[in-house]
């Protein structure tokens, strides 16, 4: 098992394989477990497929990470985080794998807290929107080492970042308190002032006073926040002590709640100065800055140092970096900031012949998560689906489509049962239509010619179906089907043509899409025929021109098809996938990963009311199609001739369902 995996790793990157072989004896001693070692090599292969240099760096230091090796889940979370965080910067990525400590993910509490926050992110986002801050994204800090105290909330131009480990048991209250405090700053604080030569202690005291000032202002509009914030002000003489951070917490509490008594002279002085200034005008920023200056001088007279990792207390308060612009003192480097002007825009036909036009990549990119069954978690934004430019729609083609030389038909499709409705005002029927009968009697009495249509009966209305036919275009579809002279691609095309032509275009909507992937960053997706397009000459030409190539990342393609289908109005929605083998991709070596991911995509589609059905030509498909699509949602065609027929049958079954 181990040697086979090592060979696979060798095949992906020689150097990583070699480095692994060197540390292997140490690891075997450490791990003492063949399956754990196999998981580890799989992980290396995963990294190597995307970033060989990073994998090499990781392999070389594996023997120095005994604690991290003990739990493969932590190592995997860490490696995936590094790959995703630095996916566009190879240098930073290698540095991450050379030096970063995987044990930052060993913190179970932080892990639980981050999941908790991410689950409530949407609600917090709405909460911020209520304060007019809809553009700030709620996000997490980078993971931090276990021993160090977690960073405070920080507010940047586009995001509000929360620590991964929550400092209070009342997590939801803390998140709301932090969001409301951030809103107070953004609504009332002067932002990014020049820090100049202010000392760190001075910055800390000015920020402390500023926190109290903006909260006071905020309370004028939102008085309920007082007790929300008050729940976290717990500093007392006994609990907080006489160091600077303790005194600062006590002053923060004294400023928050006038009823709290405190005996410390510094705290009392701070409160007296603050209340005097607040009684005057809360908007007078300079007056409050003077208070902060006074307090800083007093603290320094007491010879109390600013602690190394000072965090404003209570924990809902942010690190106040948004108040200051620390970098403005640096001299402006004209060379660095001068915009480069050596390009210009010209129409393509006016181009001098010696210049090559640079094309802008206008293809639409959409990022989707993938399901990691080993971690039992989504890998956010993992796969990128690239869609070629939108297919032009030609209105005139509808007529041409109707005159198509030979129309194929699926038997039974026109006999599918429909939803029942009531047909009123009929000349004959099963029962009386009472209101029509009354009208008729009225007309008779009024000596008008009566309208005899006074019956009604149950009728049927055809349900509308929207189908996405998803074609696997991977390289294996270019092969010949065993025992025949046609390629898989030919058979898929035949089946697609049948489905596209046989559905009633006035009622049902069908789209024919295809996919092929080349690693997670390039899942190519092609709209051969879209919903609003008749199956005319252009789509038929596109279908005929399809060629086999690349691999099968089924999950990402299914998610993209789900999105396409979600925008359609139909009574029921179906994804019909035509394939010839199990999901695979060049950057994935693990056996089950893509199968489990595809299964997750199918489950998600089912959750949104879409049925997924698979037709495959792989005779050995039993093992995985059942896992992906469920027991009743697949059909295995044994030989090529039957495939088209099977497709028709499947379609009838799906539409009738």
């Amino acid at each position, binding site marked *: 098992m181990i040697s086979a995996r090592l060979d696979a790793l060798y095949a992906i990157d020689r150097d990583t394989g070699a480095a692994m072989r060197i540390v292997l004896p140490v690891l075997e001693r450490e791990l003492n477990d063949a399956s754990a070692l196999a998981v580890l090599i799989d992980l290396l292969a995963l990294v190597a497929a995307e970033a060989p240099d990073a994998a090499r760096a990781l392999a070389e230091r594996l023997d120095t990470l005994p604690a991290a090796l003990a739990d493969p889940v932590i190592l995997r979370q860490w490696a995936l985080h590094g790959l995703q965080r630095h996916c566009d910067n190879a240098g930073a990525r290698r540095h991450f794998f050379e030096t970063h400590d995987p044990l930052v993910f060993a913190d179970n509490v932080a892990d639980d807290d981050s999941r908790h926050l991410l689950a*409530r992110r*949407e*609600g*917090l*986002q*709405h*909460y911020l*929107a*209520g*304060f*007019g801050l*809809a553009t700030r994204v709620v996000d997490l800090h980078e993971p931090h080492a276990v021993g160090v105290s977690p960073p405070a909330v920080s507010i940047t131009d586009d995001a509000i970042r929360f620590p991964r480990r929550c400092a209070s048991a009342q997590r*939801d*209250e803390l998140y*709301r308190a932090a969001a*409301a405090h951030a809103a107070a700053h953004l609504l009332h604080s002067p932002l990014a002032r020049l820090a100049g030569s202010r000392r760190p202690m001075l910055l800390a005291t000015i920020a402390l006073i500023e926190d109290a000032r903006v909260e006071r202002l905020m309370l004028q*509009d*939102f*008085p*309920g*926040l*007082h*007790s*929300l914030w008050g*729940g976290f002000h717990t500093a007392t003489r006994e609990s907080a002590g006489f160091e600077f951070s303790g005194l600062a917490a006590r002053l923060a509490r004294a400023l928050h709640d006038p009823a709290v008594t405190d005996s410390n002279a510094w705290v009392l002085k701070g409160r007296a100065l603050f209340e005097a200034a607040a009684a005057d005008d809360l908007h007078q920023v300079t007056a409050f800055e003077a208070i902060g200056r006074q307090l800083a001088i007093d603290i320094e007279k007491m010879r109390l140092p600013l602690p190394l990792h000072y965090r404003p207390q209570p924990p809902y308060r942010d690190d106040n970096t948004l108040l200051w612009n620390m970098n403005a003192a640096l001299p402006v480097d004209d060379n660095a900031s001068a915009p480069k002007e050596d390009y210009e825009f010209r129409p393509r036909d006016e181009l001098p012949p010696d210049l090559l036009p640079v094309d802008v990549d206008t293809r639409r990119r959409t990022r989707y998560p993938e399901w990691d069954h080993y971690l039992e978690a989504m890998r956010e934004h993992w796969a990128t689906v690239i869609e070629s430019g939108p297919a032009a729609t030609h209105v005139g083609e509808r007529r041409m489509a109707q005159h198509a030389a030979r129309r194929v038909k699926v038997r039974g499709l026109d006999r599918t049962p429909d939803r029942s409705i009531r047909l009123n005002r009929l000349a004959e029927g099963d029962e009386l239509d009472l209101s029509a009968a*009354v009208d008729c*009697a*009225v*007309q008779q*009495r*009024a000596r008008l010619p009566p309208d005899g249509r006074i019956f009604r009966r149950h009728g049927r209305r055809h349900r509308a179906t929207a189908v996405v036919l998803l074609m696997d275009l991977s390289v294996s579809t270019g092969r010949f089907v065993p025992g025949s002279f046609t390629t898989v691609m030919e058979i898929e095309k035949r089946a697609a043509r049948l489905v596209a032509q046989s559905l009633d275009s006035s009622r049902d909507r069908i789209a024919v899409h295809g996919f092929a992937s080349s690693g997670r960053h390039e899942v190519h997706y092609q709209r051969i025929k879209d919903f609003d397009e008749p199956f005319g000459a252009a789509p038929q030409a596109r279908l005929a021109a399809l060629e086999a190539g690349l691999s099968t990342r089924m999950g990402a393609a299914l998610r993209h098809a789900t999105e396409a289908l979600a925008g359609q109005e139909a009574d029921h929605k179906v994804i019909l996938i035509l394939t010839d083998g199990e999901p695979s991709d060049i950057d994935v070596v693990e056996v089950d990963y893509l199968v489990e991911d595809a299964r997750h995509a199918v489950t998600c589609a089912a959750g949104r009311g879409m049925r997924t059905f698979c037709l495959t030509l792989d005779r050995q498909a039993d093992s995985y199609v059942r896992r992906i699509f469920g027991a009743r949602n697949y059909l295995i065609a044994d030989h090529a001739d039957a495939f088209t027929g099977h497709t028709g049958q499947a379609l009838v079954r799906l539409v009738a369902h």
Partner: protein
Amino acid sequence: MDPLLHPYLIDHEPYYRAAGNEVALFSAAFARGLPMILKGPTGCGKTRFIEYMAWRLQRPLITMACNEDMTASDLVGRYLLDAQGTVWHDGPLTVAVRHGAICYLDEIVEARQDTTVVIHPLTDDRRMLPLDKRGEVVRAHPDFRLVVSYNPGYQSVAKDMKPSTRQRFGAIAFDFPPAGTETEVVVHESGIAPERAARLVKIAEQSRALRGRGLDEGISTRMLVHAGSLMAEGIAPHDACALAMTTPLTDDADLLTALDGFVEAQFGPRP
């Protein structure tokens, strides 16, 4: 005035707090006989306004709530049977046209577009209503006025007025009044203290910022009045807000937590 219309007169002055010059505008249009559209979000006071104007101008008000199943004969009338034979029964629109009243069609876009076409001959200079089943043309009474209302917030292509219908009307756009005015309304209607009413209004303002983020409409003045009356009866603010404002507004859990957060920002954490 025809005694038939007496039940439609409004006896007591309905409370209406003007937020702008809508009273003057409406009175001028009314004097000219111009049919009017009142549009605005739900619960902002459109219906209350027309009641107030009917009382102020001393005209009977015939209200009709429109729905999708409404037919033209629901508006103009139909033949019914009695012991002697058939008898014609005027619909609400015909009553208003014949005897001179204000006909108020609430939520007009809910009715199918072809139904509302019957008002076309009434709303141009012909001012008449043909009753084809009866073979009669009713000339509009000089006091007849037509007022319709709808909510532009959740309109779709299927629910909109035909341009040919729209262009016959003058229109006044309503919105939620400014905070001070809205507080005044809540205080008057529910009887709670102005300070508490102001807090309710703040919650509503925050919720209106979520429009388009999953909420079709924010908390309306009507909801505030309901919550205020519950609080005036001694219900705790959190319960009153949950019952009358946040819970009815949405089923989305994320939106509900945000809305509860807004309540908390006014009344503190739930004890």
